């Protein structure tokens, strides 16, 4: 069964303290792995898509990497405005019902304190 596990559930950082969030997955053929940011009271906001092992993408203080079993979201020198829940999702190659299903992890709640 396709599954996504994110760790830690919650992370508290001091401003400037770099860290990484983990997303472990099992999927019957990976079409893509997605990272989203979700602020309270809002829908998820797209950050990155990774398609193959070894791929890396960067955006400001965020860098996402992908292996065959997991993805990391590295946050360099975070600021308080980076505080949010970060969601990971995988999309299977299995095309059923006219679409490739997205499977989400439960997210990591990040709090960055000044």
């Amino acid at each position: 069964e396709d599954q996504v596990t994110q760790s830690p559930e919650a992370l508290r950082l001091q401003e400037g303290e770099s860290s990484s969030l983990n997303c472990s997955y099992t999927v019957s053929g990976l079409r893509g792995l997605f990272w989203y940011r979700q602020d309270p009271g809002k829908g998820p906001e797209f950050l990155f898509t990774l398609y193959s092992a070894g791929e890396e993408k960067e955006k400001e203080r965020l860098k996402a990497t992908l292996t065959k079993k997991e993805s990391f979201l590295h946050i360099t020198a975070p600021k308080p405005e980076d505080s949010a829940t970060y969601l990971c999702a995988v999309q299977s190659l299995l095309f059923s019902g006219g679409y490739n299903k997205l499977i989400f992890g439960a997210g990591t709640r990040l709090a960055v304190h000044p």
Partner: protein
Amino acid sequence: SAVISQKPSRDICQRGTSLTIQCQVDSQVTMMFWYRQQPGQSLTLIATANQGSEATYESGFVIDKFPISRPNLTFSTLTVSNMSPEDSSIYLCSVEDSTEAFFGQGTRLTVV
């Protein structure tokens, strides 16, 4: 990209009543997706909605509880019927293109 407007943004409802959530997209899309996000849990797909056909429901979700309408290529509604406190969640509408999924801001439902 796609911009999705969802309403209401939040509501508090009495148990046994129903609530209809509306989702409007700024472009025509073939498929629209409805998700539920229970407190502290991941997004779970409820159903997919194609214009002109009945919605397809995921395991654990049934049409009598979550009827969906899809009258045209830019609009859909999800109704949460005969609500109980266990239905308290955030409900999200989503559309996809070839590279990513776009989400509305969600409807935070509290059933008392």
